[in-house]
């Protein structure tokens, strides 16, 4: 196992370096001088030269590249041009917002997607059940998350006035209360803050969750179809076990193994989804930070955000690979 872990790490590291190189060079061919973007057209040549020097842009590209890799490895992404404080600090503040969105929408996706997939597979011979479910899945897959988000906003925020139109709630406050122990000394305040966060989270999580549920339901459907035709399911039925036991005890657990392998893909899709979801709902988070940074030509911030996105995806894939080895011992690794 240890050898396997090490081998996977050996593959992941060059992949990460490669991905980071792509980010670095893409950011370097961006049109426009970051200093001009930061200081405006009116800046004097002296000021611009100073700025270039401060940002280290006067050094040879190769030196900048090695420096970037070395600093990124230590989570030092430089200083945001617009905000004026370290990118890593900014990312640290935004990360929890994106994390709760990904978690909440994953819960929605699993709760909606897995049952739909299972029922659709089991009832595949009754078109009245399978067909509508598959159509729902297909619609979810085809519906852009930003459109669904806007429709939810129109109905639930503007017309019915149930949910807030923008913002992410006071998540920083909740985290602060947890850190300082205030959550336990004044639980009423804490619960109110959590309620506020959930209130802000509902619509974004539903929008992103529903589009993700489509992917999950299709995968669970095919995983269930695969499992249900196995010999051990027939054996279970032959033993006279009820359909419920067959499905929940035998099929469901085996179905989860192939689902596990797509968690990596799922996280990638969910993270991409947060870029759009956070923008639609004007929620703070890594995704919105990235879009804003690109719009403001804040290169260190954009570069940092993309690097963190990539790091998360590669890390999750690594973890999934390992989980897979634990869950399915039949798999031997070369």
């Amino acid at each position, binding site marked *: 196992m240890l050898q396997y872990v090490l081998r996977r790490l050996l593959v992941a590291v*060059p992949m990460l370096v*490669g991905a980071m190189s792509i980010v670095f060079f*893409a950011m370097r061919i961006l049109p426009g001088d970051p200093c001009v973007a930061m200081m405006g057209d009116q800046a004097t040549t002296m000021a611009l030269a100073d700025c270039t020097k401060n940002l280290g842009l006067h050094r040879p590209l190769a030196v900048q590249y090695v420096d970037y890799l070395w600093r990124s490895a230590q989570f030092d992404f430089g200083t945001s041009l617009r905000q004026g404080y370290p990118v890593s600090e900014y990312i640290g503040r935004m990360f929890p917002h994106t994390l709760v969105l990904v978690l909440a929408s994953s819960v929605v996706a699993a709760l909606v997607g897995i049952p739909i997939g299972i029922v659709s597979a089991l009832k595949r011979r009754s078109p009245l059940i399978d067909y509508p479910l598959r159509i729902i899945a297909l619609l979810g897959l085809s519906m852009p998350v930003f*459109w669904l988000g806007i429709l939810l*906003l*129109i109905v639930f925020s503007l017309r019915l006035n149930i949910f807030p139109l923008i913002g992410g709630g006071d998540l920083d406050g909740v985290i602060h209360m947890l850190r300082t122990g205030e959550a336990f000394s004044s639980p009423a305040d804490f619960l109110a803050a959590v309620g506020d966060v959930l209130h802000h989270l509902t619509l974004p999580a539903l929008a992103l969750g529903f589009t993700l549920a489509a992917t999950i339901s299709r995968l669970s459907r095919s995983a269930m179809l695969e499992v249900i*035709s196995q010999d051990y399911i027939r054996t279970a039925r032959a033993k006279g076990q009820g359909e419920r036991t067959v499905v929940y005890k035998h099929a469901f657990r085996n179905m989860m193994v192939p689902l596990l392998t797509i968690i990596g893909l799922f996280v990638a899709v969910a993270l991409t989804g947060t870029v759009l979801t956070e923008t639609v709902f004007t929620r703070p988070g890594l995704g919105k930070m990235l879009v804003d940074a690109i719009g403001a030509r804040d290169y260190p911030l954009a570069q940092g955000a993309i690097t963190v996105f*990539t790091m998360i995806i590669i890390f999750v894939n690594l973890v999934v690979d390992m989980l897979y080895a634990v869950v399915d011992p039949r798999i031997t690794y070369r």
Partner: protein
Amino acid sequence: MAISRRADPLDLSVALPGGEARRSIGGYLRRWLPLGIGILMAIAMVVLAAAAPLIAPLSPSAQYSDAVLKGPGAVERHLLGTDEFGRDILSRIIWGARVSLQVGLASVAWGFLLGVPLGILAGTRGGAVETAIMRCADMLMAFPTLLLALIIVTALGGTLVNEILAIGIALTPNFVRLARSLALTIREQDYIMAARALGSGQLRVMARHVFPNALYALVVVATLYIATAIRTEASLSFLGLGIPPPTPSWGNILSEGRQYIKCCPWITTFSGLAIMVAVLAFNLVGDALRDLLDPRLRGE
């Protein structure tokens, strides 16, 4: 000790008289209906895009100062209403189909052209070539399609050609992977050995034998990627990184309409609907083709 397997105990029911006919009609519909609907929708979209100047009732950029932010049908000539500049939404959506379809088709073609030869080369040659190609593909795969397209479009600037380039490159690793895995299976076939025995060179084997046999599956998947490309284009435009206004694209119509969702939800509703219908069309076609061609699902 092979035991012949019946697919499912429920299969017995179809042997009943009348069941056969019911099943065959149901099965026929089930197999061809989604494909038919999808193809019809896709054709409708192509016609819409190609004949936009003929079909669109008004010019997409003409501003009607007497009809600013009017709802659907409020002014007779604007069936789906107008935007903040008094431009006709229906006409803009019809013209927007051009951008979506051009990006959808061209970027998939570009990704296909880049990815498939590399994938087939990797799968057929093996060795260091395969490792090098696949590691590069893995590296690009670390980025989700939208994120990679976003990086490239940001670097190159948002124009139609750059969008096509960016989305095509973002799709490339998918084609590399698929073509490689197909090539890996195909290269073990007897006809490949026969071709080799007859003296065919590596290139000839790849071009004349591996590629045509992989084409089937590649095209099916390419159809599904058209849907992905259209959605990615709309997402980029929505984020303000795609084709800049005033050229209408569904994503930028929706993005502009976002500021007016309180008073004028029709702008975002109809442009979003257009995106969904287009993506749905190609998803339906791709799905149906895959179900038809995948032998494991044929009996379903």
